[in-house]
């Protein structure tokens, strides 16, 4: 195809418009600023031509004819008229038909005011109905799941929600049923639309048929104010935050081409309920008497003033530094804050106090050099048509919902080949070209065989629990597409195994990456799939041991940063596990918790418990009084999402703006302000008066972020990807030895579910009940071997603990493996996990 054939020129209402071959007329017209009314057409889904509203005069040389513009592709010389009398008459007629059965309950309908049907009736319809017969009737709103109600009388059968469920989410649990004028959208009886993405159907419904429980009857669209912001999850989903009377009432997804395509998970979409919760902290708390006097070591947390709480915190820090040196102060967490908050705390800890015992991850992620040192991919790169994705991460459907949707689309529609290298099946398994479900802890051997191609194939051979034949097929497929980009989604697939095997597997893939790039091919890049909102920002801002803001190691960046900071820690500090071990040993006097709950979230609960007990002063800055904060000595109420402004960094390193729309409860303050106040009391002026001033300092001192102005971030519709990094990835020298699993044991796999016992989920009334109870899942073939029956309660025993748990069958769990949700609300699997070992084995008895 020659150069000039790649553009098609059509005429829309007399104006020439250039379009891509294959583009729908409706899309080309909209790009040219001509709006064609429609209900069923959605740019992110297949066209179906259901509603007929978009019919316009299209002339392809045989005279104008009415055709649905969402189903006709542009062709050279095409003439489109969206204003002709014929078009107008047809659209009026279609609208009159659509309104035949549509109830006129707009005054009590949630959609009223933002309803495409209402708007287009105003713009096009005849205004008066000639239909005098009885409209069709259905039972008024029925729940299709716990979050979404369906009013079938209002439905105009546009097929958007059912298409979304089928094409985008892959959960076709709502369909058209019956036919003719009785056609309705419905679920199978007693089988709800249990999708993690059901809230999106509410957003794309062009009428008020689908409404979300948390928003029903809460506000009218004209009472809402809104800002565009970034939801603080690792994908950095773009959202519009809508509020009324200083209350956030709704998040709507924004179609960002590079990130979330307008979609959100239900967990994120409805999490505003928890930030708006009555249980939010609104005042600083200290250990004190009922009258509010400080009482160190007292049993009660009492409300106090900021002045007193900050002074007590500063005194404790000063005393610890004087007594045992700066290393006796440690900071845990910060992954849920904005970049500016993180930078302020990093500067306070490393520049003012002088401790490097700082870690934003809770020993459940990857080493800093594996995140910042490996070549970073973008989501679009992973989704390049014809490319390959290697999944070595926890189930994206459970942890990174919108990434799951993007990957699913890429595999289903764009021919992306997915190789799954995980210890158990994920939500993407049924789409994977090659499923390599290895024994927990043995990813490195499988990755080595995958890229080395040196496989001893044969029917009975295996590598790390993966059949050699399957592995050889995957290796051949990988080599076959080596000319196309290969993207590795890298994370900790199981919290019951150490990070070592995953890092070693990444190192194996890097060997191939070097060969490919040397050969001038796109090679391999990595997308880190870590837990907690802005964890990538935290690593960039230096909230990790051994690094400074700007993706630079302590050793390399100290000299440059000392100019602006005055001083930096002399030697690298401890990571989260090291910090808690030091704390349990009595070597940490002040432990600062930034939006983390080690008691609830740290993989080693016993260590977390003894650490909190062993610390002199625990200072927590948080939204809620979670179990760890409840044991703290000083608690600062912090501003949450929607109450603060700043920037966010997603898994690609993409920086986008987070904006404020409501005020914080009580006197809660943004974390950067808390850090600067504390610094002031420690005789250091950070010099910030606003998050924008913090950002100015970040772009001045952070190498990777140099000269990246907020204006530049705002100008780009999808933010700016920061790619520079001076940190190198260290390939592990020795492979971690993985013990053999004995014949009587099962190897444990534990990963997070979307709805869990986490603070945000449990404080959102609509979401809290969705967390599933704990079960132990075994391969169906293992029941006989273990000698238990499905559904019975069994005793699971590892050498560190034991518990009773119901056992279920799951074909996605490989033989010899037992899977247990990491963060179930009722049973805590952490009692079984040996955190000092690479893997944990357990036995089962009845």
């Amino acid at each position, binding site marked *: 195809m020659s150069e000039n054939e790649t553009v098609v020129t059509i005429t829309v209402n007399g104006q020439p418009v250039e379009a891509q071959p294959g583009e729908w007329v409706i899309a080309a017209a909209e790009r040219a600023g001509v709006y064609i009314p429609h209900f069923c057409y959605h740019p992110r889904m297949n066209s179906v031509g259901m509603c007929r509203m978009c019919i316009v005069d299209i002339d392809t040389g045989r005279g104008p004819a009415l055709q649905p513009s969402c189903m006709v592709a542009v062709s050279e010389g095409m003439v489109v008229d969206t204003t002709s009398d014929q078009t107008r008459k047809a659209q009026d007629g279609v609208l009159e038909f659509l309104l035949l059965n549509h109830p006129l309950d707009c005054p009590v309908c949630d959609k009223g005011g933002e309803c495409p049907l209402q708007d287009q009736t105003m713009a096009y319809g005849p205004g008066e109905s000639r239909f005098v017969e009885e409209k069709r009737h259905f039972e008024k709103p029925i729940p299709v799941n716990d979050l979404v109600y369906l009013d079938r009388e209002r439905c105009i059968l546009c097929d958007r929600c059912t298409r979304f469920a089928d094409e985008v989410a892959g*959960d*076709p649990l709502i369909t058209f*049923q*019956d*036919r003719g004028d009785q056609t309705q959208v*419905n679920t*199978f009886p007693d*089988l709800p639309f249990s999708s993690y993405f059901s809230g999106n159907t509410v957003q794309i419904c062009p009428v008020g048929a689908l409404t979300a429980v948390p928003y029903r009857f809460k506000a009218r669209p004209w009472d809402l104010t809104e800002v565009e912001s970034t939801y603080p999850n690792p994908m950095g989903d773009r959202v519009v935050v809508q509020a009324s009377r200083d209350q956030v009432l709704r998040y709507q997804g924004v179609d960002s081409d590079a990130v979330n395509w307008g979609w959100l998970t239900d967990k994120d979409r409805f999490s505003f309920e928890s930030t708006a919760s009555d249980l939010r902290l609104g005042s600083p708390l200290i250990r004190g008497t009922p009258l509010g006097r400080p009482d160190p070591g007292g049993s009660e947390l009492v409300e106090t003033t900021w002045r007193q709480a900050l002074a007590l915190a500063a005194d404790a820090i000063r005393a610890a530094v004087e007594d045992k040196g700066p290393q006796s102060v440690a900071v845990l967490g910060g992954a849920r804050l904005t970049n500016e908050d993180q930078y302020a705390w990093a500067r306070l800890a490393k520049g003012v106090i002088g401790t490097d015992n700082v870690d934003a991850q809770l020993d459940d992620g990857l080493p800093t050099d594996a995140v910042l040192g490996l070549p970073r991919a973008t989501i679009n790169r992973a989704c390049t048509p014809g490319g390959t994705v290697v999944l070595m991460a926890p189930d994206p459907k459970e942890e990174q919902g919108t990434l799951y949707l993007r990957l699913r689309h890429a595999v289903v529609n764009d021919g992306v080949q997915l190789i799954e290298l995980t210890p158990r099946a994920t939500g993407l398994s049924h789409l994977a070209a090659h499923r390599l479900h290895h024994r927990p802890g043995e990813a490195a051997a499988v990755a080595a065989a995958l890229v080395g191609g040196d496989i001893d194939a044969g029917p009975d051979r295996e590598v790390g629990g993966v059949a050699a034949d399957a592995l050889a097929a995957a290796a051949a497929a990988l080599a076959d597409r080596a000319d196309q980009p290969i993207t590795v989604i890298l994370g900790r697939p199981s919290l019951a195994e150490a990070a070592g095997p995953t890092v070693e597997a990444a190192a194996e893939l890097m060997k191939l990456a070097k060969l490919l790039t040397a050969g001038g091919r796109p090679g391999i890049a990595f997308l880190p799939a870590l837990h907690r909102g802005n964890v990538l920002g935290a690593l960039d801002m230096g909230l990790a041991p051994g690094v400074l803001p700007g993706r630079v190691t302590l050793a390399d960046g100290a000299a440059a940063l000392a100019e602006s900071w005055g001083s930096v820690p002399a030697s690298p500090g401890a990571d989260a596990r090291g910090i808690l071990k030091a704390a349990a040993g009595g070597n940490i006097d002040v432990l600062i918790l930034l939006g983390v709950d080690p008691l609830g979230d740290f993989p080693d609960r016993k260590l977390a418990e003894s650490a909190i007990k062993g610390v002199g002063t625990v200072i927590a800055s948080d939204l809620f009084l979670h179990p760890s904060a409840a044991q703290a000595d000083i608690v600062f109420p912090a501003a949450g999402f929607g109450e603060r402004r700043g920037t966010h960094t997603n898994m690609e390193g993409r920086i986008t703006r987070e904006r404020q729309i409501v005020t914080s409860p009580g006197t809660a303050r943004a974390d950067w302000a808390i850090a600067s106040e504390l610094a002031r009391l420690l005789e250091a002026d950070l010099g910030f008066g606003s998050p924008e001033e913090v950002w100015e300092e970040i772009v001045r001192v952070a190498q990777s972020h140099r000269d990246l102005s907020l204006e530049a971030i705002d100008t780009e519709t999808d933010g700016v990807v920061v790619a520079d990094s001076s940190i190198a990835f260290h390939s592990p020298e020795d492979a971690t030895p993985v013990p053999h699993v004995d014949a009587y044991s099962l190897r444990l796999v534990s990963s997070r579910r979307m709805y869990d016992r986490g603070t945000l989920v449990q404080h959102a009334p609509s979401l809290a009940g969705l967390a599933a109870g704990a079960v132990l899942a075994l391969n169906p073939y293992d029941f006989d071997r273990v000698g238990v029956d499905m559904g019975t309660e069994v005793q699971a025993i590892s050498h560190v603990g034991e518990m009773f748990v119901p056992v279920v069958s799951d074909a996605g769990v490989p033989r010899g493996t037992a899977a247990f949700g990491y963060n179930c609300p009722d049973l805590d699997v952490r009692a079984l996990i040996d955190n000092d070992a690479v893997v944990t084995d357990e036995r089962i008895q009845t």
Partner: protein
Amino acid sequence: MARLNPNNLAIAQEGIARYPVPRSALIPLLHLAQEQDGYVTEDAMAHIAELVGVTPAEVMGTCSFYEMLKREPVGDYMVNICNGISCHLLGASALIHHAEDTLGVKPGGTTDDGKITLEAVECIAACTEAPCLQVNYRYRNQVTTEDFDQLVADLRADTAGVAPHGQLAKVRQHVSEDRWAGVSPPNGQGEPAWMARNPSDNGDGS
């Protein structure tokens, strides 16, 4: 009354294997379920969903589209009296009234003994034989009230020579395994197995 019984499960699996894509067998399987229970039960729909790899909601969507797939229990014999224009002119209404009186049910109802379900239907394309009706979709032509009474008596005695509702044929078709379509490769990647067996076909209908 529930999922497909072992015998029908074997038939279902053979049926699925005949199609290049499992979900193509959906409608034959719904007929099989209706043959088993007289109507399509929800359990059967869920079972079919498992067998062809779709969700029960999708099976429901397909099943509910077709009038002749019943989702509620019906009698052993469906009596569909035509009320199209020719039949109407030649006394269909009177016949329907007579049927209502004799059977004691309105159209759509089933007699207490569970034998007969009465339906009034639109034109069934036998206008030259008006007024006409169908018993389990088998025609009875130029039906008088006397004919109707005799028919009801025969149906109640199971001597009308009509198979119970749901049964599609007296002899089940079997296709030998080498004529099955075989699993088709994903879209655009190679041709289905049956094309190779018919080289003259060239896959282009020539």
